[in-house]
């Protein structure tokens, strides 16, 4: 019997610019004891769906226009707030995407963990605390009795997500809704969390609705899957048939665009390679592109440029970056955090070096030290034979033009108050590129075209773009100075797989076109493998393994590398079969 039955649900948002049909007439069910995956790109309405069920859609601007959602004789859409509150957190729990912001930073986690018990079960605090500790132990937190009194900021992202899970499950709910719970996490941590959810689901018999944009995760976890696109369900069913034989072109695109470790694509297929939109009578029809198969075929065949291994653009030698742990009052610092601890590598012109490792391993600091954004403690960084470590701002200025960086978070790396035009032309002004205002604007327009954006966007503000578009703008901004060398610092980590594929393709294309040299920093080996020629694996500030990407992937010398490889979800049909049967 279905635990939750959703029928013809419609949630619209009434904004100043018109009605946005975020969820438009969808129906699905959640069976007892199953894991239902909802998959789709951002903006597809998957989050709004579950928020509607939980009664968390802000009204206004949101409004539930129709449909029913039955749970145990309650229509979740119409039942009054008090009843809904008694269900929320008690029988239906929810965990959110970003564990960094979803826990109250001002309260001890013990306080937050026992809160549902206090409210829903009128438990006394002592009892509740005991259960909280048990629950924390269950989600794999060692020394739970002690750490239960910590504050959220004292935990890593993975640990916080465990706390979130513990908090959601503490009341023994029947349904757990997980809204992209692993998206913000490292692959290795993601693997752990997924494993944990799987285990808990079996242990506790809870039904799970799992929302993700990553089909790989669905393949690892879900029993059934619902594919959403632009507010509609385009396909749903058991996980194996859908992976084996996707019907909808969108599903096909989603399945294809993920860089897989085992694939040999030189260009990643993207959703639009499969999907065709045609407008008929104001309605948009989706259909499969007729030549999709041929296109995908062609993608395997793009040639690699030749790399001259002796033409070294960048030489890093014994680079160290140490941060003072806590500065003493009378004496020097009490200790040093060795973020980067004596690493050396070289990058030939026109090649890509992949830098991988878990978060906190020092890869980001390395990237910034190379650009002199953090001052290296010791060691040398030679760019085209010129030493740049320790140069001051003025001396760096001519070099800034030639080496650029693209950051992880496209949301905070663009100044929200500058239009795209300003963002793109300002570097040119500073470095004296372009002769006049209009010349620079033309260049900016050309840059936008180069990153597959329309030149009309010049007058827009960053917030008017999606994350993928913003990242392209960041790339365009980096390119505005016509650099030879770009550090991509987790440039695609925060993106939906489909968008990620587009950006990765773009980067590759630009590299070929402009003979760029990249350092590509990521925690995701599959992405690095796709991008990089050589690869360095970092752990605790040191490089543990270094060499050709293909070789390392094929034969990882270190356990650590192996672990990174293993963490990547296997979304092959074979692995699903193995799991399901």
């Amino acid at each position: 019997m279905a635990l939750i039955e959703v029928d013809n649900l419609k949630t619209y948002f009434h904004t100043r610019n018109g009605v946005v049909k975020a969820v438009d007439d969808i129906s699905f069910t959640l069976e007892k004891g199953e894991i239902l995956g909802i998959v789709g790109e951002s903006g597809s309405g998957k989050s709004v769906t579950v928020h509607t069920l939980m009664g968390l859609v802000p009204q206004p601007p949101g409004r539930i226009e129709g449909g029913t959602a039955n749970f145990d004789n309650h229509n979740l859409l119409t039942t009054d707030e008090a009843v809904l509150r008694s269900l929320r957190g008690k029988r239906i729990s929810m965990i959110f995407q970003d564990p960094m912001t979803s826990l109250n930073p001002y309260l001890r986690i013990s306080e937050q963990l026992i809160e549902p018990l206090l409210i829903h079960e009128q438990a006394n605090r002592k009892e509740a605390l005991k259960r909280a500790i048990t629950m924390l132990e269950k989600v794999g937190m060692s020394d739970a009795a002690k750490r239960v009194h910590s504050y959220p900021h004292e935990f890593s992202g993975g640990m916080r997500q465990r706390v979130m899970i513990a908090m959601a499950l503490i009341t023994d709910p029947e349904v757990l809704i997980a809204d992209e719970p692993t998206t913000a996490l490292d692959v290795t941590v993601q693997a752990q969390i997924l494993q944990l959810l799987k285990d808990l689901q079996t242990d506790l018999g809870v039904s799970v609705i799992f929302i993700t944009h990553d089909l790989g995760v669905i393949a690892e976890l879900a029993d059934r899957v619902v594919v959403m696109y632009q507010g509609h369900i385009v396909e749903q069913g058991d996980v194996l048939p859908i992976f084996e034989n996707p019907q909808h072109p969108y599903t096909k695109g989603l399945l294809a665009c993920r860089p897989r470790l085992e694939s040999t694509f030189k260009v990643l297929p993207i959703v639009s390679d499969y999907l065709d939109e045609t407008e008929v009578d104001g309605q948009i029809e989706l259909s499969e592109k007729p030549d999709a198969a041929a296109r995908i075929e062609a993608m395997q065949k793009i040639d690699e440029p030749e790399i001259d291994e002796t033409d070294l653009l960048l030489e890093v030698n014994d680079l160290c970056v140490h941060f003072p742990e806590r500065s003493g009052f009378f004496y020097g610092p009490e200790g040093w955090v060795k973020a980067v601890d004596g690493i050396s590598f070289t990058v030939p012109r026109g090649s890509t070096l992949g830098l991988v490792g878990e978060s906190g391993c020092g890869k980001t600091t390395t990237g910034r030290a190379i650009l002199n954004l953090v001052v290296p403690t010791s060691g040398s960084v030679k760019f085209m034979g010129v030493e740049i470590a320790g140069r001051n701002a003025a001396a760096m200025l001519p070099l800034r033009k030639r080496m650029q960086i693209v950051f992880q978070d496209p949301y905070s790396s663009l100044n929200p108050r500058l239009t795209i035009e300003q963002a793109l032309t300002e570097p040119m002004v500073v470095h004296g590129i372009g002769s006049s205002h209009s010349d620079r604007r033309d260049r900016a327009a050309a840059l936008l075209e180069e990153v597959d954006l329309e030149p009309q966007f010049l007058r827009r503000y960053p917030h008017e773009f999606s994350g993928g578009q913003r990242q392209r703008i960041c790339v365009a901004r980096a390119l505005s100075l016509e650099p030879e060398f770009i550090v991509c610092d987790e440039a695609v980590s925060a993106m939906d797989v489909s968008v990620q594929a587009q950006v990765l393709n773009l980067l590759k294309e630009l590299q070929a076109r402009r003979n760029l040299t990249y350092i590509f920093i990521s925690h995701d080996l599959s992405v690095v493998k796709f991008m990089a020629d050589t690869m360095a694996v970092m752990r605790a500030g040191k490089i543990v393994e270094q060499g050709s990407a293909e070789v390392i992937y094929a034969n990882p010398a270190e356990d650590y590398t192996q672990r990174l490889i293993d963490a990547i979800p296997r979304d092959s049909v074979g692995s699903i079969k193995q799991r399901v049967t």
Partner: protein
Amino acid sequence: MFRYIFKRLIFFIPVLWVIATITFFMVRMAPGDPFSDEKEMTEEVRDRIKAYYGMDQPLWKQYLIYLGVTAKEVNKHRVTFASGEDSKEYRREDVNATLRVTATAEVKTMQGDTQWLARFLDQNTTTNISEVEVFRLERSGLLQGELGPSFKHKGKSVNDIIRESFPKSLELGLYSMAIALFLGITAGAIAALKQNTILDYAPMSFAMAGICLPTFVMGPLLVLVFGLWLEWFPVAGWSAWGGEGFFPEGWPGDRVLPACTLGFFYAAMVARLTRGGMLETLSQDFIKTARAKGLTETRVVVKHALRGGLLPTVSFLGPAFAGIISGSFVIETIFTIPGLGRHFIEAATNRDYTLVLGTVLFYATLILMLNLIVDILQAWLNPRIRAQ
């Protein structure tokens, strides 16, 4: 933590020193002196009074004396020797000492333990009459914790004046702060929760009105209405706790109006800040988490949102609280409250040099302390800061 506090406390010293130095020279440069009055005195009298307070010394020396680095001459008195007179022995009641002073300007303490010095003031060789000034040296200044005697309030030291008046300002300040925080936070929180509804506009309009109505309007207005027309509260005055007057009825009603006047003004500020902070916090993800737990809206606000929402209010409160508990001149004048606020202004208008310096240094210390406390409080409210 203690290390941090200690470090901050050490920093107080140079800051206070700079303040003392600038203020010292500033007040001396201002026209007029503590002694000028509508009825003028003769230059001679003025010079003597100045000499009495050590103001005949060069300014830099007065400064060093004020700091307590240099000793000053105290208990000065003159001994006149007639011709042929060698020495005099006499007793000084006030310092409990017996002295023998010779005509050659030497002095010996016969009884008592202080070191006395003497010098010629006037030595007339023809008549052989000489005048000797006897004094002793004493170092009392900032370093010794002495703020000196007040020029205006004769017989009172600045330390006494602050000690006497600060508790009253503090008491009033605490009431006002309580009112400001209670009204301000409630109004701000409600306004934020019910953003863009009547429950938002109404309290915010009142807050705006509170900012528009200066205390010198609000005070008399409240007095007129609640003191004279409705006769609920006394219009002014400051009765002692447990003293005569109001205590038999349980509480000193004369606190109500001044505390409200001062409180309303700050309540308005607090309301605006709280609203802003709450709006910010309410849009955070963890509020969604709290709602998903099935908490009631009240609990969401009180337990989860308020703490973060109060952060901007708390940082505003540092200087505001220093201002509020060191007294408000306007309020204290309107309600005749014997608090510290009046001394701030009156000392300056009276050119009561020592009192100006004393109150300024006291206020500076308060500000520094409160900024420190605010930082600690913020760390307490926000564990993330605490970690740093």
